[in-house]
């Protein structure tokens, strides 16, 4: 196997039919394009197995097998120890809301939950609502100098009543990867558990829940090359402890079914197999003929190399302007920055600049990206907030160059000047 695996970008792009429609997609942190193999799985389920599971007849048995296959694929994707550690749900937001509800009987008034200020609201709001039940919510601040979450700050917040620490693996604004294993060890040593929002991480880097030693780990498939769906990993013993969200006769032992009220969407869950097939293929193309998991690991090495090139191309452009504030690290050291890059231009309204980009058929986003608390904390809410370019491995250097050329044109016009405040 090559030391530095690389991607066959022609193959990569051929697997995403949405890329052939004339747009450059730089809003992948909002939602990525879907893989053809994922769509194929959805279609094949709907055509061949579209019945309720739990029946004795063959088609129903096959539908149940598809769901188990989906959990097995997800197990490989995150390196869980068994398929039952995977819970499917409609989005990361709803999965975390479900998790919070399912933890209620474990929590007593006065128990404490710590959330990070740099998280998306999905991993703050559900815990915030538990305050109605007497749970105490504390915020883990971001060091404004280094833009990192520091354990010394967490230490000051933790007490013997701390039950859970909720933190993102990578902020969808800052783009830097948090040292999750280090966080997990720290939290576990103090007798608490850790719940990680990996939405902005999973499309870019290898997920290994065993290596991370996380208790709960959630991300969205629709940002990881699948349809609008999501999954949560939980350590099996922890899932057993959770309350049922389903009918009363779904006991605590019904893992993971008790956490999927109304059952998961089978065809969307089944698409996970298509995502894993694709990643395995990338690993194989990079010379890895080992296990599915091994090929996924190799695929992400190749993905990282491509993303590093994209990141550097855009950051070097932004660094070379004297009117640009890069929000987050301006350098990608040791591949610890994913290509989700937020920035602002002096005196320019981000909304107007972003809308001007629509004409160039380049899809990007402005605002706070639902990480509002972080935007407020960093004082980045005026002038339409931030512009964000969020790339993934199927993007190309040519697309970055097209973007910067379009940005040059927009910045040389009066776009965004009048509304600046």
């Amino acid at each position, binding site marked *: 196997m090559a030391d530095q695996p690389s991607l066959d970008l022609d193959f990569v792009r051929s697997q995403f039919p949405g890329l052939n429609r004339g747009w450059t997609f730089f809003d992948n942190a909002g939602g990525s394009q879907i893989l053809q193999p994922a769509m194929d799985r959805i279609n094949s389920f709907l055509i061949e197995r579209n019945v309720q599971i739990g029946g004795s007849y063959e088609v129903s048995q096959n539908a149940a097998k598809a769901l188990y296959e989906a959990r097995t694929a997800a197990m490989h994707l995150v390196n869980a120890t068994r398929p039952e550690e995977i819970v499917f749900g409609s989005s990361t937001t709803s999965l975390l809301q479900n998790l919070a509800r399912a933890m209620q009987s474990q929590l007593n008034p006065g128990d404490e939950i710590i959330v990070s200020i740099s998280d998306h609201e999905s991993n703050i709001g559900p815990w915030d609502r538990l305050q109605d039940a007497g749970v105490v919510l504390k915020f883990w601040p971001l060091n*404004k*100098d*280094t833009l*990192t979450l520091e354990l010394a700050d967490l230490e000051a917040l933790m007490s013997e009543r701390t039950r859970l620490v909720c933190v993102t693996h990578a902020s969808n604004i800052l783009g*830097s990867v948090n040292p999750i294993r280090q966080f997990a060890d720290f939290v576990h040593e103090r007798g608490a558990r850790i719940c990680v929002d990996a939405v902005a991480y999973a499309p870019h880097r290898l997920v290994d829940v065993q290596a991370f030693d996380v208790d709960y780990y959630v991300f969205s498939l629709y940002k990881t090359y699948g349809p609008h769906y999501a999954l949560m990993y939980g350590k099996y013993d922890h899932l057993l402890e959770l309350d049922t969200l389903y009918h009363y006769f779904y006991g605590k032992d019904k893992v993971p079914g008790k956490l999927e009220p109304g059952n998961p969407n089978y065809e969307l869950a089944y698409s996970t197999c298509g995502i894993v097939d694709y990643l395995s293929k990338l690993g194989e193309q990079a010379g890895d003929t080992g296990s599915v998991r091994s090929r996924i690991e190799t695929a992400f090495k190749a993905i990282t190399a491509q993303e590093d090139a994209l990141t550097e191309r855009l950051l070097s*452009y932004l660094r070379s302007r004297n009117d640009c*504030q890069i929000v987050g690290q*301006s350098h990608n050291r040791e591949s610890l920055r994913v290509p989700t890059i937020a920035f602002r231009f*002096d005196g320019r309204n981000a909304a107007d600049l972003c809308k001007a980009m629509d004409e160039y058929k380049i899809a990007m986003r402005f605002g706070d990206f639902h990480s509002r608390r972080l935007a407020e904390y960093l004082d980045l809410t005026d002038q339409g907030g931030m512009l964000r370019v969020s790339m993934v491995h199927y993007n190309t250097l040519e697309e970055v160059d097209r973007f910067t050329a379009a940005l*040059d044109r927009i910045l040389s016009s009066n776009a965004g000047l009048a509304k600046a405040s």
Partner: protein
Amino acid sequence: MSAQTKNIISVRGLVKSYGTFTVLHGIDLDIAEGEVVCVIGPSGSGKSTLIRCINHLEAFSPDSTITVDGIRVEPGAALAKVRAEVGMVFQSFNLFPHMTVLKNVMLAPMRVRGTSEAEAARKARELLARVGISEQAEKYPGQLSGGQQQRVAIARALAMEPKVLLFDEPTSALDPEMVGEVLDVMRHLAGTGVTMVVVTHEMGFARQVADRVIFMDGGKLIEMGSPAEIFDNPREERTRGFLRAVLNH
């Protein structure tokens, strides 16, 4: 520089980190009005980060202070004022490719200073003459060599009539045969009253043009002095080692 000369840039306890990696470890530095300072040192020593902090292109520790012409450099309304007084020339030229050379130079004064189009054009032509490329005024950047583009970038920075010009390795991206023409422009610029802080690997330029040379390594300001002091009689072993390596290369 006279001891009486006013300091235009003052840096105190400058600390800058990228995540857990600290790039600048408490830099203290004063630069006098009109002074030409060259910053040298190995790659990764923090030279570029230092000058990027001066106009807050890189955020730095809130415990650190930088002032430019008496204005504290920090996010907020005052930052625009600082940036209007501090021009910057980068390694890459970043001219707008769809605008003529003349328009590139005219744009900022019209937009930021409210200069009339006629006055901006007059001033732009004067500056293009100063950097030796008046005849290229109506061309587009893509029609120019790298050296010519960098000279336009310098003219563009000068168009704002900055009190301070920061140069971040302005010749590093150029083919060797084009380095000289850019250094010549900078050489002529030195001594015209504009304060220049130049991050450079061009030791000959630093020796000849700088009032003061600063050697940085590992995010620290190791040694500074006149070009003769630094190049002929460096006090620190790290400076000697660096100069041996680059001058014997």
